[in-house]
């Protein structure tokens, strides 16, 4: 019979350890997304302002973060700051900082896009009805912007979850790192474990991300 090394999963608490690793990845992404959404809304709203200086600064920040590979940012924050400023960040802290920097940049651009995509006549017909500025934002603009935003920010969550596979490089024990550890420990008894374990990791990532992107698709269709 084809030996996929799946029996390693049932050894000890290996499956639980993998799930724990997945949880670390999810925890870091969800926490980062939460903070990024809050900061992104703030920066995105700032970007629609007329002030050219704020606009330029935010633009540079956004481009910079976009161009930079996430791994370089992770190394810069985790190893760089220890040497340069003597900060002693844990790997998880460093990961959250990097993901928030990245997520805020992406979110602010999405928020800006959602806000400027609301046609001018939506503001004007609200004004013509006598709504105040605050009422226009509260009842008309923000609800419409959120509808455009939510599917896009859900996509950002799945991208973040996927990108957590990089943080084992700064010593965070997430799902992929746990998988490596399990494979390493069983190298003698089950030399074929690599395939089975990585297959399990693959399926776990899928189970975590698939419902999220289904929700995004559903919301996108519903609010079109």
């Amino acid at each position, binding site marked *: 019979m084809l030996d996929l090394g799946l029996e390693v999963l049932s050894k000890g608490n290996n499956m639980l350890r993998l799930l724990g690793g997945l949880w670390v990845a999810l925890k870091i992404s969800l926490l980062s997304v939460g903070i990024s959404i809050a900061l992104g809304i703030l920066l995105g709203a700032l970007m629609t302002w007329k002030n050219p200086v704020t606009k330029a600064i935010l633009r540079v920040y956004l481009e910079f973060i976009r161009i930079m590979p996430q791994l370089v940012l992770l190394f810069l924050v985790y190893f760089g700051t220890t040497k340069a400023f003597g900060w002693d960040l844990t790997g998880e802290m460093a990961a959250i900082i990097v993901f928030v920097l990245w997520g805020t940049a992406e979110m602010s651009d999405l928020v800006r896009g959602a806000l400027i995509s609301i046609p001018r006549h*939506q503001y004007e017909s*609200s004004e*013509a*009805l*006598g709504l105040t500025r605050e009422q226009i934002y509260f009842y008309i603009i923000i609800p419409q912007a959120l*509808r455009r935003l939510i599917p896009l920010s859900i996509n950002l969550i799945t991208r973040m979850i996927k990108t957590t596979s990089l943080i084992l490089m700064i010593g965070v024990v997430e799902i992929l790192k746990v998988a490596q550890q399990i494979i390493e420990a069983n190298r003698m008894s089950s030399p074929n474990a690599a395939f089975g374990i990585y297959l399990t990791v693959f399926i776990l990532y899928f189970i975590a991300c698939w419902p999220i992107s289904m929700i995004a698709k559903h919301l996108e269709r519903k609010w079109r």
Partner: protein
Amino acid sequence: MAEPILALKNVTKHFGENTVLDDIDLSVHQGEVIVIVGPSGCGKSTLLRCVNALEPIQGGEIYLNDEKIDIKSKKLANLRQKIGMVFQSYELFPHLTVLENIVLAPTKVQKRKKEEVQQEALALLGRVGLLGKEGSYARQLSGGQKQRVAIVRALCMHPEILLFDEVTAALDPEMVREVLDVMLNLAAQGRTMIIVTHEMQFAKAVADRIIFLDGGKVLEDTKPEVFFEAPKTERARQFLSMFEFNVVKSQVEKVSS
């Protein structure tokens, strides 16, 4: 004669160097239906937008019942409630149902009771032939239906004057009629209205007064019989002859096809 509801006094409006409204005087009395006509780009929309303070004016004054309309005034939202406006592009709020579109401003701006406003909204929807559509979203309606909802939304605020800016211009021909009928009905109820339109037959039928605007000036301000049969200015004659040409042309097309 009674005091006018709306009075424009020496109103001037520039966009940069471009003078769009040049010393406009205009009074509108209770129950009057004013139709504004004129070539494209002559400032018809801008005039309506200035009345509703969607555009600032650079000279002159606009009064609604002796209250000055000032774009910086604290009471602006208060004044705007008294002016109902319907635009050319359908501007319903896409995230709200028909009923929510109509009820929003009366309940949030005028703080009226929701049940009472909903009752009124449903009655008005019935009057424009849209009963049963109250739960629909704008994307589920035809252009003509959207414009009728927009009219009901304006009416539900109990405005003292209604402004219509080419509300049928973006509609398919078969829907123009249903919207014009609603407006004819409003005129028959004695509503005060300013209507911008290119539908000359409709203008003739609905107007108490025709204003002919060209080059930012009021060139004619007269009864529809006079304007359509014997316009005083050469510009107005030219403008009207364009429509005759269109009528002739469409008849020729009908014959040849």
